[in-house]
């Protein structure tokens, strides 16, 4: 089962994703795929808040900020996975720390393929993305590369997902499939 969740910031995507990943596990093994590579105190505080949110839900954390399919070798693939978020994954791959954070033009397509390989390689997965496509701005080429790349990942994932959900103000809009009871 593949569930894809997107929507605006601070609308309740992560909480819903946790709830659904626990549900899909049916009491069995569940992993949290941690995608953020912290670079400052703000990031570390954010991670601490997310860890506290997950406390008591029984997730084992798998750190995987880059090269997503590599983590498949370290886990029980029959488990339930929560991947939060594609936004962080693309960011980590798009700006290469080994090359002074220069933009890697091959990253969006690589990320899209990695994501598809990952979701197809596990029994159950809930993936969270961010909806960043509806504002009146002319962005620079780097930002547009990022937006286009993330949208390609979103669309490819939505196409193979069993359930596609948009969260708005904590409310759920189901675009595809039926929510598990």
């Amino acid at each position, binding site marked *: 089962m593949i569930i894809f969740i997107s929507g605006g910031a601070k609308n309740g995507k992560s909480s819903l994703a946790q709830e659904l990943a626990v549900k899909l596990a049916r009491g069995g093994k569940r992993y949290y795929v941690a995608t953020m590579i912290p670079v400052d105190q703000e990031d570390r505080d954010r991670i601490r808040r997310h860890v506290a949110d997950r406390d008591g839900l029984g997730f084992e954390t798998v750190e995987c900020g880059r090269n997503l399919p590599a983590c498949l070798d370290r886990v029980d693939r029959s488990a339930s996975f929560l991947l939060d978020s594609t936004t962080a994954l693309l960011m980590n791959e798009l700006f290469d720390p080994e090359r002074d954070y220069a933009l890697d033009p091959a990253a969006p397509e690589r990320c899209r393929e990695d994501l598809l390989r990952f979701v197809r390689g596990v029994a159950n997965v809930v993936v969270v993305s961010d909806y960043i*496509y*509806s504002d*009146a*701005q*002319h962005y620079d080429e780097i930002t547009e590369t990022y937006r286009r790349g993330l*949208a*390609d990942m*979103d669309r490819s994932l939505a196409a193979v997902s069993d359930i596609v959900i948009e969260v708005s103000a904590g409310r759920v809009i189901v675009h595809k499939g039926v929510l598990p009871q």
Partner: protein
Amino acid sequence: MTLIIGGAYQGKLAFARETFSLAEEDVFTCSGTEIDFSKPCINALEEFTLACIRQGTDPIACLREHRAQWERTIFICQDLFCGVVPIDTELRTWRHTTGLVCQYLSREAERVSRIFCGLEQRLK
């Protein structure tokens, strides 16, 4: 008339082409204040509203003037009116006016679809 809205890169044109079996030459992509209403599909309507703002003309008045010509047209417009209100006056007017254009077309439309990550959400 059909109105298709949605965010950037969401697959609005791909959806229109597949749903209405459109060829490449059936699509007019806006880049100024002129629209070729003979084409079945008019894409990037937000570029038309931006050009109108820059020229100081009213895009809704222009559409109204050609009302008889788009009875069966498929309009595609980016819903760029959802984000933060921009400080820049031109962008702010663009956001506002594009919202009004979509409201006008939505009232006139037989079908309104919003595309989210390549999937259709029927609004009308």
